């Protein structure tokens, strides 16, 4: 089936705000397992750090997103797992190897969601009380993302030899220094983590302002946009795909997903109409559904909405491969 013919579906569990319901791991794991049973492409894990100036009424998850991803990786086997992690909270070398390691733990199902929006409160907790100007933060983010993606390519696919009798564990010619020296960082590399089963973990970019779009067109595997009126979204989608092509990339090699919050719609069947309308208007390649992290809610979505989308030929019946890249129809890992 043509990759473009069916929509991609991600889900973001939003912490439960009702009193007395902490988001313990087992309940969250059940939520993700049910999303996996419905064959959704991936789960996007928000980070618990303050993301909206501390004004958010949401109860934070008691888990940092990358540690949560590792734990979920061992209790699932199909669904993609994407963790948000801030460019302020980690050095690029540390984040690069954390995510590379998660990708091996999950057998090629990991991704990193980097937000292009600076969070002042985060800067204040990471010894940068003055923060960065918008322009500096943008250049720093692009440099950071380039380093992480470069580190992910430091080992060739066939670099590990495992030759016991010859005493050759890896081929020295197939391990590459990054030798990055830039405006904000200098990183020699290579990573001390092997290459990903899907070649590189999936990069999701979100929190984009207009000047960030070219960075996203150059670097992203998935671009996450906020929802808006269909007409505007349609133009926005065309514009993004043109920018991707202008970077010399196949427009279909980057998937554009729109955030949809179904939290206020307690009647989820109506959602299928809404998704179909937006998808047919060519405003995106799929959706990230933000759902309260409650089992009855994911059950309703999986039992009512997803089968309806399948009946309409809008969503695939099963995973096409074993990696997140294969779910998204992206090149990588020798599966395409």
């Amino acid at each position, binding site marked *: 089936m043509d990759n473009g013919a069916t929509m991609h579906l991600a889900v973001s569990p939003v912490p439960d705000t009702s009193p007395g319901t902490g988001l313990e791991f087992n309940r969250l794991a059940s939520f993700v397992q049910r999303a996996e049973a419905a064959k959704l492409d991936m789960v996007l894990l928000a980070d618990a750090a303050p993301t909206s100036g501390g004004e958010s009424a949401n109860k934070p998850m008691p888990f940092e997103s990358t540690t949560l991803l590792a734990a979920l990786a061992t209790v699932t086997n199909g669904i993609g797992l994407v963790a948000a992690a801030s460019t302020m909270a980690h050095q690029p070398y540390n984040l690069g190897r954390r995510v590379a390691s998660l990708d091996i733990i999950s057998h090629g199902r990991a991704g990193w969601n980097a937000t292009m929006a600076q969070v002042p409160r985060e800067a204040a907790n990471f010894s940068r009380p003055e923060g960065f100007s918008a322009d500096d933060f943008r250049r720093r983010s692009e440099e950071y993302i380039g380093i992480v993606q470069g580190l992910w390519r430091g080992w060739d696919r066939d670099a590990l030899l495992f030759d016991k009798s010859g005493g050759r564990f890896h081929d020295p010619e197939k391990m590459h220094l990054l030798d990055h020296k830039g405006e904000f960082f200098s990183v020699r*590399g290579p990573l001390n983590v092997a290459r990903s089963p899907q070649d590189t973990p999936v990069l999701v970019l979100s929190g984009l302002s207009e000047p960030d779009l070219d960075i996203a067109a150059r670097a992203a595997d998935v671009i996450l946009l906020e929802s808006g009126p269909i007409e505007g979204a349609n133009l926005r989608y065309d514009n993004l795909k043109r920018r991707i092509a202008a970077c010399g990339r196949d427009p279909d090699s980057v998937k554009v997903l729109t955030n949809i919050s179904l939290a206020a719609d307690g009647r989820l069947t109506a959602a299928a109409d809404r998704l179909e309308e937006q998808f047919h208007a060519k405003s995106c390649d799929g959706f990230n559904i933000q759902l309260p992290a409650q089992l009855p809610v994911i059950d309703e979505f999986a039992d009512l909405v997803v089968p309806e989308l399948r009946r309409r030929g809008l969503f695939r019946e099963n995973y096409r491969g074993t990696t997140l890249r294969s779910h998204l129809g992206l090149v990588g890992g020798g599966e395409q």
Partner: protein
Amino acid sequence: MTAQMKLGAFLWATGHHIAAWRHPKVHVTAGIDIDHYIQLARTAEAAKFDMIFCEDAAGLREANVGIASQTSRSIGFEPISLLSALAVQTSRIGLVSTASTSYNEPYGLARTFLSLDHLSGGRAGWNLVTSASPIEAANFGSTGLKLHADRYERAREFAEVVTGLWHGKSSGHDGQSFSVRDPLDLPRSPQGAPVMVQAGASDVGRDLAARTADVVFTAAQTFEEAKAFYDDLKGRLAAYGREPDDIKIMPGVSPVVAETETEAREKHEELQALIPDDVGVALLSSYLSISDLWRYPIDGPLPELPESEGMKSRQALVVEQSRRDGLSIRQLARHFAGARGHWRIVGTPAQVADELQSRFEGGAADGFNVMPSYFPGELDAFATLVVPELQRRGLFRRDYEGRTLRDHLGLKRPA
């Protein structure tokens, strides 16, 4: 009940012996196989180890690519993601990982370990280290490795901020190296605070440990060295208002154990024979913090060395051993390649238990961090041969007394 020793299982892909990956019984893809680690963690938990322990370095361990490619140490799991995966695949054993104060920020690291603590129900610990390797420094834009004293001053402030955040300190911190405005956005730890482990053995490292650590991991070859370190560190606690029992000192030990002594010696020799000379000399060079050891005759003595800004205590340990036993560079290289500077015991279960008992009852250790030569074989051997012997002697628990790592270690819950 008499006091019982604490035991850590120090995991490392193929094994602590530098040539373990070449051993016929070793699973050569261990460093990229999460199921291998899940199996090791479950073995250690079934044997009632207090904790599993993972080390870390933010970079390759060997600058010379030709040498590095003859070892299995250039790739592995990043330990915090590894332990997070193991947290939900185990239920009782403690989970301790190294993380450096040199290339992290305290707010982020405090959050990450507290998150691991929540995932595991109160079983997490952080092994605080400073980074001494120029290979790591090059990954973080450093123009040169910082001096030992500067690294430890940053570490001291880092530890202060992390423990403050874990204990729910609400006011901000504005210090020499770090500024932090908010308290953590996660609930308090199920064990009060994750356990603090430290491995530095230099004078300034010992002071930092006396001030902040719950557990100290150290390397000691002889009983006298171990005893001197133990007494010195416990003696420093009073200055910080702490009791001797507030800190558990757990030296590393790398046993090669078999039913008979002959069999154990054969096993040891089999491993030693797998070490290429250049790999052994390179490893020895790294412990000595010098780069040109290969220029000296391999069967001659160790040359005079400048004082290290790297791993001070490890350098001193190697030099001391070379003088005491009159060993050549080749002999030293093979010796240290085997157990990475740690105590090596080769023998029967009873002989290994005798040695451990002697250091434990002699007041030189509160327990041991067990460093199997190769995995899973030598962990299995320790679990099935040595642990029951220790239990029979009343020296080790038969079951967990509690749920958290603090429970296992008999540490007070922080107020």
